[in-house]
């Protein structure tokens, strides 16, 4: 029966079909749709939607395709997918390098935002642990952060193991009285934060920015000794002469990448992609509008397009 309904609907559609004429909207190299990938976090979807709007404004056809952050590289290599707007230095570097090495994927430059990843605590913890944000204060209040499973050690909630981050090594190198517990996904990570925040309970966890959580919740990043590449490579560097990783996590740009064929097939679009950037502040405002003020992604993208019309026209020409 469902078949029948689908078929009769199709027949209906055919019966009502108007002879279609579709004049080319603007002079672009190819009318084939450019496929942009969207992942499962709001910031990236807004970012991609805006880029899609810009490309549409320039006359290109655009399709947004949902794809996994890392698995998408397989599609980018074969040309199934064309553009990815956010490859984070901090989490995607390895996969990106592997893909660009094949020559089928091209790095299209920095996207303008800087990724920050670090240990984070809510502001109300400053009363209970006065030395914060300095990392040396952490050991004095490990008991504050302890739970029955980790006591007497404090509990630090790390990101999914796939994010890397060397937190176990950091705890070891800096002699922190903390146990690293890994959340399975970032949904679980922020669920714990929300729960603790509601109860004003102690929590110390991995947070990354740009993200809505740094806007929604009041808090700060722990200040570790500043990161340098030597710190990760050379044990003798830093507070602990015998161990690497005795410093903060690296920060880094968020990259744009594209299928190598984009350059030939849609040279204009490739040019626009190279020009296109968003700053951390812009992204923060966009994400808050969507996730906290409950506006739709399309509305937010359109508002941004109106406000930045001049900049966008500059990128297109």
């Amino acid at each position, binding site marked *: 029966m469902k078949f029948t309904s689908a078929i009769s609907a199709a027949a209906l559609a055919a019966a009502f079909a108007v002879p279609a004429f579709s004049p080319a909207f603007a002079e672009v190299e190819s009318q084939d749709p450019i496929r942009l990938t969207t992942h499962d976090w709001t910031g990236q979807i807004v970012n991609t939607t805006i880029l899609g709007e810009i490309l549409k404004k320039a006359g290109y056809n655009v399709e947004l395709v949902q794809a996994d952050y890392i698995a998408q590289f397989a599609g980018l290599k074969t040309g199934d997918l064309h553009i990815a707007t956010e490859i984070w230095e901090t989490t995607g570097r390895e*996969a990106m390098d592997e893909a660009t090495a094949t020559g089928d994927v091209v790095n299209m430059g920095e996207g303008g935002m800087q990724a920050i990843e670090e240990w984070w605590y809510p502001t109300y913890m400053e009363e209970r642990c006065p030395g914060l944000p300095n990392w040396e204060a952490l050991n004095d209040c490990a008991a504050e952060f302890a739970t029955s499973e980790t006591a007497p050690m404090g509990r630090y909630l790390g990101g999914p193991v796939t994010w890397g981050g060397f937190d176990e090594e950091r705890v070891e190198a800096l002699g922190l009285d903390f146990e690293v517990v890994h959340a399975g996904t970032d949904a679980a990570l922020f669920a714990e934060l929300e729960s603790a925040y509601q109860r004003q309970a102690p929590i110390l966890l991995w947070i990354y920015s740009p993200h809505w959580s740094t806007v929604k919740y009041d808090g700060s990043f722990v200040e570790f000794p500043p990161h340098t590449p030597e710190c990760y490579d050379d044990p003798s560097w830093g507070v602990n002469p015998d161990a690497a990783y005795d410093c903060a996590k690296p920060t880094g740009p968020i990259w744009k990448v594209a299928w190598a064929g984009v350059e030939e097939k849609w040279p204009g679009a490739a040019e626009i992609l190279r020009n296109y950037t968003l700053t951390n502040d812009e992204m923060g405002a966009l994400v808050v509008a969507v996730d906290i003020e409950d506006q739709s992604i399309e509305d937010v993208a359109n508002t941004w397009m109106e406000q930045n019309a001049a900049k966008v026209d500059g990128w297109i020409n």
Partner: protein
Amino acid sequence: MNWRRLIAPRALFWWGLLAVTWGLSSTSFQLYKAFDARWIIRFPKAWELPLETWISDAMRWLLEDATFGLFTFRELTRFISAIIEVPYDVARAALADGFVQGQGSNAVEIAPSLSWIAVIVIMVVLGRVARDWGLALLVGVCFLYLAIFGQWGSAMVTLASVVIAVPIGVAGGLALGILSFRMPWVERALRPVLDLMQTVPVFAYLVPILFLFGFGPVAALVATVIYAMPPMVRVSTVALQTVPPEVVEAGQMAGCTKRQMMWKVLVPSAAPTLMVGVNQVIMLTLNMVIIASMIGAGGLGFDVLSALRRLDIGGGIEAGLAIVVMAIALDRVSQAFSTRLPAEVKGRDLSYVQRHPWFATVFAVVVLTYIAGLFVPTVQDYPDAATLTTSAFWEDAMRYVNVTFFDTFEAIKDVFLTYLLLPVKRFFTGIPWAWGIIAAGLAAARVGGWKLGVMAALMTAFIAANGLWNKAMITVYLCGVSVLIAYAIGVPLGIWAGQNARAHRWVGAFIDTLQTLPSFVYLIPVVMLFRVGDFSAMIAVVLYALAPAVRYAAHGMRAIEPEMIEAGLVSGCTRRQLLWRVKLPLAAPSLLLGLNQTIMLALSMLVITALVGTRDLGQEVYIALTKANTGQGIVAGLSVAFIAIIADRIVSAMARHSKESLGLA
């Protein structure tokens, strides 16, 4: 329960096995230190099979080099996905997006999608045709819920993929079922394949599917079909085998050819049983909605995921309930079709409309709403202004529970952790791998004969040889504890429901909801209340795996012949004796089947709980998914499947024994 059996000589074997295992488990670390033999607790790296790399290489070869001469393997899979994409696009256009011509900004809408009124009318008519107005009302209310709670657009995207995945799954399943019915060797060859299809976690093969079928909804459809088809194969084989011989003989006497025999005799008379398979395919397809949305299917699954990523718990619950509601509607309609009596054939002298009144009604409504929709937008799309949301309510409820009861929950959790979870975990993770292989073999051989023993030992060895011993033991521990608790809650509930018709209805509704509600919806609140860790994972698994324990216990109770109970009453049993001495022993085979299914569901859920943060095989599969590592995913997935298969065979053998001893077999 007869306690003397626990000290009978037969039981000594089990006590001995347990004692040795416990002894080795608690001393393995000291043994390793004493003999400086690290191989006792860790499988030697040098002996590990490089299976992961082999599979990944094979995959790369398949993707890049494999060719049939005229076309490559990938062109073949891409061709298949292009074929699937055509009907999917039509279904999606009809239900959700509308028909358009041209691409992107040049797109011109030719015809809108079916209006919400038309879809509801179609579903109501389906309900009426399948059974009666009562069912039609239920289905109508279910779909009205989707419109009123603002889930319509996403729900139709999901429905579009159901409308495509189910026929493919059913047709494929029926075809394989017919093959196995005709050729016994096909059945033998298929059985292990089906076992694997049902037990290898979906996450394990998502990556290769993405590579082969491209990114987007089609890959999600393919994964859904793989997951949902096995029951259809099994059901159709059994359905064809159990067609009464009289029917077959009648067909032979009428001079049927082989083809006529199949399509005019066997399949029609097996139709009611086949519909049970169709029902299973529909339910499993809806189970896949969330996972499918992770690889681009969109729809309700995506809404659940994105709501929970924003911690919009209310939004997640609403979208999750929309899936439940849709599942209930489709389940009831397909069940009604399976018990429906063939309709009488109307006279040929009547007009087309008179002969097909329902189809004519649907057609009229579709046309009318199409025309009306052109002028009145609310006919085409349910007005946004009239939608309801309960989001704020859930938000507040969650906050209240969290703030008020967190400390109580924490205390309960500590008790469970200290006295149950941690000791069991220590026991399982302490078992040296070499003894683990032997113990699995011995236990399986004792229950199911030496063949089963060898198989279990080989499968356990496979897990160890791939360096997954420790993660496998954590899997066994988490799964074991969860099954224990699910069983301890589920069986009494089932017994109660089996003896009391009213309880049966309520418990049934509760269980249906638990099973179709995407686990994601309660995963995040559970994490909020119990933090990241094994305990949260355990709660999620228990909630999901409860259903079969309840169902089979209730079924076992209801299937007891009344004469047996009367005999018990006549011999003067008290209520308590009646339950323990008569009913429970008679329901034992059914209870064991329930145990089997509880284990299967618990294992399949463990992969989902990796999203909370566990360190088991589920996590291994999930890591492989996020790193797009085909080999790692498949090896870990096979390990999960092997644990499931060993458990399944052992419990099935126990069920067989208990049936034999009751004289039921």
